[in-house]
């Protein structure tokens, strides 16, 4: 019954041995502890010879438990477990005492550090005594990926996965894929036309046979687990049959509701009620906006089915498709379920559009105070003014234009402390686009700092100043107010220490990148974490930058934090490669740290009393109920059971259980009490 435990104390060069007497730690580990049959110290346990020592001693000494007293388990737990496995020992009988991070590096006094180290080793020895053999859980893999969001991040990830030969489902909630990148005029630092580089990718996606595209659709629910997700997708009623429609444009040409603000043009342009968001939309087939459509408005007012309203049926009448028209007013939302192996979340960002919170800049007050994305639409050839810079109020070409940076970024007072990372660059680009179109005009930029870390970025920014003649003023704007048809911008130039007053025709606010409005709810649907700004969190900022907190769900693009296009594309490729690694296996192995509800012989069957408190606290819906049946089929009792595939091993159920029927493998009560009991108190 009693285990034979080996204790291996690492010097870590001198990282540990300089402030911890490792020989004494090894000696003490053996003292008064009959279970410890072997102890040693070694210069570098993680080195090849160190691992060999571990393997050899497991075999020679017949060890069935190992404590490695070294660095944090986050560093080499995996290394030593693997080494033990090779020596034929179940790897879950290995525990790590964290002497380096918890003792030697933080307690420079040698006797103090040594005393604590002895304690830490004893705690882990006692825990090891209670360790049970565990085996990795094997789960099958559905070889199909889901990409949520059809912006550049989602498109890149989907293409990479599909090109490797796997099926991809893409879900986009707007009527077309393309995202923000399709809205941009040009891109920094090359001044490539954004649509010219974006639309080929969109077409490639549409033509890829491995990709199934659901636009005007949203994720309803995500159940299941790594390799085996069940995803419910809501296909919102489009009122247009995508299989029948040819995108001939007749319907949106006759639609009488022509004054609806175009979302794609950031409210600067107009669209009809049945519309495609922009000319290169994919699919190039319209969607009927039921909120603004006269027919649906009438039907809502009279409380009748839309098909009974006779107010306007122009789109239906003109639709040339026969015998069944492509337009269908009776279409309803449809829920479809797909089996998915891995998920890429690429839901993107939202520009800070509520600029009325910047009343001091005239945000929301004056028509000619616009956001960065609105400026992109103004400058874009496909935009409302066909690329001519005209101010929204009267269509006049602005001769003096002021750009204000860090609007909604680096402003803790407005609840947003982070830097949006792209605004310095896009403002430099805006000044250039402006100068290229309005040669006699003058651009002023108010900035806090100019941040251009990136290939060619610094040069690009300097070009705006030196070659294109934009005037950069370091300081903030205190007020923007109207004077005649001018906007007076009152600001400070902190480099000369003077107050600056500029009579401008137009003001562009470099608005922040924010998380999507529904980011929080969406994260909860997927059980992934998000940070204080509602951007989705990666597991490790350096070493696991695309992995979300839920296994099998990866992050790409600006849903994870502000970033520019090159970074977004790189991250999307990284997420795709993670998905491909998952999909390349037929079976996946998971850490066996999962909860288990006990099962006992008849007549008890289980100590579980069936209160299902565990079910109420489980964040993953991993607790199921099981009927224990008698021979005649009658139910003896209903008890809880843990679905190993869903369980992530948090232990909430175990701590909540009133009858102590649930145990968390690797951290069961016996193990924790063994640790507590072994702390030496005197």
């Amino acid at each position: 019954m009693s285990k034979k435990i080996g204790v291996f104390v690492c010097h870590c060069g001198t990282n540990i041995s300089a402030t911890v007497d490792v020989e004494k730690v090894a000696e003490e580990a053996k003292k008064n502890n009959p279970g410890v049959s072997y102890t040693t110290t070694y210069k570098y346990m993680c080195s090849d010879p160190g691992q060999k020592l571990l393997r050899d001693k497991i075999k020679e000494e017949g060890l069935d438990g190992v404590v490695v007293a070294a660095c944090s388990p986050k560093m080499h737990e995996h290394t030593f477990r693997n080494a033990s496995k090779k020596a034929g020992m179940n790897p879950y009988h290995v525990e790590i005492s964290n002497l380096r991070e918890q003792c030697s590096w933080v307690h420079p006094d040698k006797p103090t550090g040594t005393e604590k180290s002895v304690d830490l080793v004893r705690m882990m020895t006692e825990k090891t005594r209670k360790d049970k053999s565990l085996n990795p859980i094997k789960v099958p893999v559905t070889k199909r990926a889901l990409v949520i969001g059809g912006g550049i991040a989602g498109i890149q990830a989907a293409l990479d996965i599909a090109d490797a030969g796997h099926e991809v489902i893409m879900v986009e909630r707007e009527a077309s894929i393309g995202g923000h990148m399709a809205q941009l005029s040009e891109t920094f630092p090359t001044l490539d036309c954004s649509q010219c580089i974006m639309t080929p990718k969109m077409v490639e996606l549409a033509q890829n046979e491995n990709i199934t595209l659901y636009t005007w659709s949203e994720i309803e629910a995500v159940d299941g687990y790594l390799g085996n997700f069940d995803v419910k997708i809501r296909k919102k009623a489009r009122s247009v049959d995508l299989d029948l429609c040819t995108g001939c444009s007749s319907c949106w040409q006759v639609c009488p509701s022509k004054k609806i603000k175009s979302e794609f043009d950031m409210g600067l342009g107009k669209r009809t009620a049945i519309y495609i968001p922009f000319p290169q939309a994919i699919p190039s087939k319209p969607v009927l906006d039921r909120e603004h459509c006269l027919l649906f408005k009438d039907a809502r007012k009279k409380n009748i089915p839309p098909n009974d309203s006779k107010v306007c049926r122009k789109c239906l009448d003109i639709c040339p498709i026969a015998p069944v028209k492509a337009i269908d007013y009776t279409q309803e939302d449809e829920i479809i379920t797909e089996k998915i192996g891995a998920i890429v979340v690429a839901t993107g960002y939202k520009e800070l559009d509520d600029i009325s919170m910047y009343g001091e800049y005239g945000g929301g007050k004056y028509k000619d105070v616009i956001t960065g994305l609105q400026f992109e639409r103004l400058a874009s050839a496909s935009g409302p003014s066909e690329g001519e810079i005209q101010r929204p109020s009267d269509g006049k070409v602005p001769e003096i234009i002021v750009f204000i940076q860090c609007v909604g970024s680096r402003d803790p007072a407005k609840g947003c402390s982070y830097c949006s990372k792209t605004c310095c660059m896009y403002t430099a680009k805006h000044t250039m686009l402006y100068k290229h179109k309005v040669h006699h005009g003058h651009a002023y930029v108010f900035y806090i700092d100019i941040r251009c870390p990136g290939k060619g970025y610094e040069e690009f920014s300097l070009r705006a100043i030196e070659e294109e003649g934009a005037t950069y003023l370091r300081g903030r704007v205190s007020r923007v107010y109207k004077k005649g048809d001018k906007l007076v911008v009152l600001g400070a130039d902190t480099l000369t220490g003077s107050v600056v007053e500029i009579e401008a025709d137009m003001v562009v606010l470099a608005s922040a990148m924010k998380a999507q409005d529904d980011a929080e709810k969406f994260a909860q649907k997927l059980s992934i974490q998000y940070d204080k700004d509602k951007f989705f969190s990666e597991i490790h900022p350096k070493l696991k930058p695309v992995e979300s907190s839920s296994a099998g769900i990866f992050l790409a693009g600006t849903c994870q934090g502000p970033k520019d296009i090159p970074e977004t594309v790189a991250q999307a490729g990284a997420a795709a490669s993670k998905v491909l690694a998952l999909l390349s296996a037929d079976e996946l192995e998971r850490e066996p740290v999962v909860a288990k509800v006990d099962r006992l012989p008849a007549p008890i069957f289980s100590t579980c009393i069936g209160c299902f408190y565990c079910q109420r606290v489980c964040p993953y819906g991993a607790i199921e109920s099981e009927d224990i049946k008698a021979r005649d089929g009658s139910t003896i009792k209903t008890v809880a059971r843990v679905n190993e595939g869903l369980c992530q091993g948090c232990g909430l159920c175990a701590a909540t259980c009133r009858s102590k029927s649930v145990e968390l493998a690797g951290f069961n009560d016996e193990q924790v009490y063994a640790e507590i009991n072994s702390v030496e108190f005197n």
Partner: protein
Amino acid sequence: MSKAEAKPENQFEPKIIAFLCNWCTYAGADLAGTGRKEYQANVRIIKLPCTGGIDPLFLIKAFERGADGILVSGCHPGDCHYNSGNYHARRRWNVFRPLLEFCGINPDRIQFSWISAAEGGKWVETINGIVDAVRELGPFESYQKLNTIGPETSGGAADASSETG
């Protein structure tokens, strides 16, 4: 003050047990180590996946075994690796704290905090804070005396499950 040589002789050195979640505070403590941030050596860490998985009986057991103070620390609200585990921990704490008071245990002997994986400095402050605070309170003798009334429980971990089961 955390330097051992600076400490006055016969100063009471409290024993603190810290129950930490694996993802945030344990990593935060590691970061303090990586940054060579010195702190008082009175703490012994017990790592669990999540603060939500900490049974209050663990804390009682720690006191029973002679701890003078306890720290429970996990991820900040919203940051829990398991989405909601730290909220459950907080709720449990809110119920547990008045119970401790009712039993005559000074709730100041248990602290609850949020320390992220990036907050090595906060870990150091928190540990130094609780060690100093518990040193002020003195040894937790009243509970330990109770422990001597019953049968000897130091027979190791073998009997732990039967005590709690």
